[in-house]
């Protein structure tokens, strides 16, 4: 932990990310969701007829499906779906040049440091503001190699066949209520295609920002890594601190073809008035590798269980996650691995920290289908409880239908031990420094996997959350 990170104690979410900007929007749908809302947004986007049909069918499914009765039913029931703006179009079009982005929006992303980050270490950037991608760029050489990194709406315009072929195949609208909702009103998100044997060595980044109160953001991301290729995609999320709630409900579909590798990193730091109900799923074919690196810091309630379906021999899935729940937050996160082919392997590592009245839950699935021989899977969940009111839950499910599988699951729950604190304090650290050091150590398996800038940022964010929690 550097002095620099220590010095930043005292800043908080409100000044850092919690500001909001005036709304000079091209279009803002009324509150609530009707068939007309969906038709209007589809028309405004000039979408092909099949997409409108897809949306309307999904809308029907959304209305038919009951609210989930598992997870945090109480919080889910408190979402007022009629009070939400389902489609907000901040500007006329998506820009490739930062200077062409409308001034207000540019200010927002400037404050969040997005173009700066791009210059420093990213191969491509998408910035989504409300429902639409407002800025998008990709480095010239990647484009020359045939790498496609577009907003999902642009993807649909430029590659309608590919989108039609794959969209909703990994996560169909009837998968769950929120996937249906997203399928009906999706807007924005990223479309990524990496050609055969092409390696995108520096990360592609998407940044999602909600600005309006009672906004619903429903981005849709589809990443296809063709045979033998590799890509690392990073997303970050923030929103202003309002007194009433917003909803973020994304669908992310990843397809790793034979020998491909996809890493998908998320640092979710929504303000504490956002419901974050996301469906993320990947399929991995022969010898492919999919890694979800998933950090959950913000939001009021997050329900998110990144999944990997291992479809062909040799595929490998990895899910590495941390959750930090502060007062009144519930991070209900987890991982799902389905071994549908022989000799597939998976590793799940989950770390959670609950502070104050925060609640962290791990909810997971490991399934081995019959005939999937020689499967190996290991799941480890560790939970740290900082205060007497903190809560943690672990709900793993293991369904094993093949007797050659080797499956292990272990979980532990504890508080920061007095011995560890005492030892560090005897070495001259203050109690809060000692606590921070122990927590950094606890989440180190996660931060180690992040690009450096993100690791620094994450430590700083946790430090902010930790402020005033001891001594």
């Amino acid at each position, binding site marked *: 932990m550097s002095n620099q990170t220590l010095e930043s104690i005292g800043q908080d979410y409100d000044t850092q990310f919690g500001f909001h900007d005036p709304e000079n929007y091209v279009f803002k749908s009324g509150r609530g969701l009707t068939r007309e809302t969906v038709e209007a947004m589809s028309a405004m986007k000039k979408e092909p007829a099949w997409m409108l049909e897809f949306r309307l069918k999904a809308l029907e499914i959304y209305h038919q499906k009951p609210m989930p*009765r*598992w997870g*945090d*039913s109480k919080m889910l029931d408190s979402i007022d779906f009629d009070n939400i703006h389902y489609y907000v179009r901040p500007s006329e079009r998506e820009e490739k040049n930062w200077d062409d982005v409308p001034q207000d929006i540019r200010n927002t992303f400037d404050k969040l440091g997005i173009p700066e980050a791009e210059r420093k270490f990213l191969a491509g950037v998408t910035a989504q503001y409300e429902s639409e991608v407002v800025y998008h760029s990709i480095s010239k050489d990647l484009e020359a190699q045939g790498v496609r990194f577009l907003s999902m709406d642009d993807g649909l315009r430029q590659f309608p066949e590919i989108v039609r072929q794959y969209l909703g195949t990994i996560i169909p609208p009837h998968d769950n209520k929120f996937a249906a909702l997203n399928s009906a009103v999706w807007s924005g998100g990223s479309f990524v295609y990496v050609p055969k044997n092409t390696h995108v060595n520096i990360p592609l980044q998407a940044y999602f920002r909600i600005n309006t109160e009672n906004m619903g953001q429903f981005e849709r991301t589809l990443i296809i890594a063709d045979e033998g290729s590799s890509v690392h995609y990073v997303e970050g999320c923030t929103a202003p601190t309002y007194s009433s709630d917003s909803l973020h409900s994304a669908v992310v579909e990843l397809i790793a073809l034979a020998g491909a590798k996809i890493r998908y990193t998320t640092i979710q730091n929504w303000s504490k008035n956002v419901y974050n109900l996301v469906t993320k799923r990947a399929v991995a074919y022969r010898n492919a590798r999919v890694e979800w690196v998933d950090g959950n810091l913000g939001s009021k309630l997050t329900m998110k269980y990144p999944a990997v379906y291992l479809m062909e021999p040799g595929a490998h899935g990895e899910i590495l996650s941390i959750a930090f729940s502060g007062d009144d937050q519930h991070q209900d996160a987890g991982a799902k691995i389905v071994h549908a082919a022989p000799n597939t392997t998976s590793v799940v590592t989950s770390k959670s920290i*609950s502070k104050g009245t925060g609640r962290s839950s791990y909810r997971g699935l490991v399934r081995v289908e*019959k005939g999937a021989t020689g499967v190996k899977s290991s799941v480890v969940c560790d*939970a740290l*409880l*900082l*205060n*007497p*009111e*903190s*809560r*943690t*839950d*672990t*709900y*793993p*499910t*293991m*369904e*094993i*239908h*093949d*007797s*050659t*599988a*080797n*499956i*292990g*699951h*272990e*979980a*532990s*729950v*504890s*508080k920061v031990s007095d011995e560890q604190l005492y030892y560090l304090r005897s070495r001259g650290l203050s109690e809060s420094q000692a606590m921070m050091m122990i927590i950094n150590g606890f989440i180190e398996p996660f931060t180690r996997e992040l690009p450096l800038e993100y690791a620094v940022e994450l430590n700083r964010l946790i430090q902010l959350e930790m402020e005033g929690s001891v001594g």
Partner: protein
Amino acid sequence: MMTTPWTQLDAKTIRDWSSARGEPAWLVDQRATAWNAAAHTPVPPRTAEAWKYTNLEKIAAWNQLPMAASAETTPAATTDNAQVICTDLAGALREHPQLVLHYLSGENSARDFSAITGQPYGGARYLRQHDALWDRGLFIFVPRNVQVTTPIHAKTVAPRTAGAIFPRTIIVLESGASLTYIDELRSHENSATDFSCHAHCEIFVQDNAHIHYSQVQHWSSTAIHLGHQRITLARDARATVTNISLGGRTVKQITEVVHTAPGAESHLFGLNFGDAQQQIDHHTLQTHIAPNTTSNLLYKSALKDHARSIYTGLIHLSPVAQQCGAYQSNRNLLLSDDCSATAIPQLEIEANDVKCSHGATMGPVDADQLYYLTTRGLSKSQAEQMIVAGFFEDLITQLPAESLQEMVRAAVVHKLTGVLS
């Protein structure tokens, strides 16, 4: 009463039957009320975690059987300790009406079990049904500071004709008492009649009392078994509970230990060996509602043929349960291509100064171990037998009687090799 499928009985028939048994008016009423309550309580929803994998409602041998004649196969047990009450429940109702009333009525009747994942337990209908229909069982009462040194060994034998039985066991240990109790459930040899057992066992362990309870279930392969066990521990009380599940076609066993006061401590063990088409489904609840309490659980299953094992278990620590330790471990040995195992070990922790962990493993016999033993001259099947025996041995030694240990060892070998050793 004894020809109608039990599920189609009505409150009036149950009243008449209860009166004919010479039961007190409060019990006649309680049975009828419970039956009506059951009718209004839904069957466990598929979404209830504890009932997701075993649906008794679809099984004809569960729904369609009449109640078995109660003269047959009443559980039997004796003790040489004159201070201890050890009698059948109907007899205890006559001889000790006030005492039995306390443990059988009101809040001590078959209560709902703890909620899991924020949902109600889901099996309330079965508890109400049992309150209405229990037809046999034992009442064991160990007074203050009495140590029962010779184990009480209760035996329940399945009826020879098709039928359903509803045994209820109530065990009370007053403060400072101790008891070793064996509950053996078995069928006549080569019995192939349709049979269901819906058992309910309530154990009250008062301050500083110790119980060592073992259930050894080896029904015939046609039996359907639903069992509820609840152990309530007071201050410094201790329970060791072992469940051996060998028989039955569909077995659903729910075990809850409630730690109600500081110093309470429990050790829960489970041994399951499924073969043929057996489905063995255990649900456990380690409920901690007081500080300084400890629980420790180890359930092991070996599976062959098309057998299926399901283990769902919850450790729940309430906000007051500080300085607690709770552990849960489930291990599954998969011995055939067609067997399957499901494990859902769960933690809900609302206190922070605690140590909790759980683990679950599933896998075939370790190839290295197998190889080692075959290099020593053992055949593959001998080696496998030795490894499975070793897998279970630590649980078998928990059983309090040598004869019982031998019986379980022999049953394990029999299941593995198909011949009686």
